[in-house]
């Protein structure tokens, strides 16, 4: 079973994404912030098919998290999707330059998430 990492400081979003991704056939590992996400990565030995991360998080924001994830050789090829309300062009470009592969605006639906995952080659 494919495994997905979901990183968001909002428990609501973690629950919603977990349900959506579980329905799509993923085993989901949630994390409430960037530091916890890195701990989860180490615990799971980087064995993820996809990573979904919020932008605005305390202590380590999404951009910094993406940079840290991309510096881990185990995750160099894992698709990363930012889930956020940020639309400002510079923010979007910064995320993509840091190594994020896709960008999804809140609010989102399960169909949107599924379409994005198919575009990334994670879902058939």
């Amino acid at each position, binding site marked *: 079973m494919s495994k997905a990492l979901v990183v968001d400081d909002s428990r*609501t979003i973690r629950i919603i994404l977990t349900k959506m991704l579980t329905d799509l056939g993923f085993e989901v590992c949630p994390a409430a912030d960037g530091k916890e996400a890195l701990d989860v990565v180490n615990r799971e030995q980087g064995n993820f098919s996809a990573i979904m991360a919020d932008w605005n998080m305390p202590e380590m924001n999404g951009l910094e998290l993406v940079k840290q994830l991309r510096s881990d050789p185990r995750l160099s090829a894992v698709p990363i999707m930012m889930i956020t309300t940020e639309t400002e062009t510079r923010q979007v470009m910064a995320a993509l330059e840091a190594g994020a592969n896709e960008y999804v605006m809140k609010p989102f639906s399960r169909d949107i998430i599924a379409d994005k995952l198919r575009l990334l080659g994670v879902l058939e």
Partner: protein
Amino acid sequence: MLNMEIEPGAPIFEHDFPGHFDGVVSFVGMAGEWLGTGGLCCNPSFARRIAGCFLMMDFPTVDDDVLDAIGELTNIIIGNVKGTIEQSVGPMALSTPTCIVGQDLTARSLGRNRWTIVSFRCGEDKLDVMMHLVPRVPLDRESESRRRMLVDF
């Protein structure tokens, strides 16, 4: 995400913070070349209903999960408004939401600001979305250069 039918009301404008609440209220700050606050307000019953739609479970009381859901809804709504108005007022940062529940609450925002309030009806329930924005007051040149030195530091 909520799958709710809602009807927007006409916007109303009020000076001073519309400060009396009886239910759940959530605020988020915005800062850039313009400064402001956005927020949502609804009664506890509707807050539980919204959280229930988000999380597909029932909430008999307004607990931490309900407050988190309302906070996230605030983040989504005000965040999207911010994304639209940034085209006119420039980039702004959004704070993390603060959500409060209580009866007979009175809140006050510093300064005399013009608030825009839009009520959304969902059957018998109502959600107020409110926001105010003011341009950041430019400092005089000496203060501005001092501010820039601190920013660069």
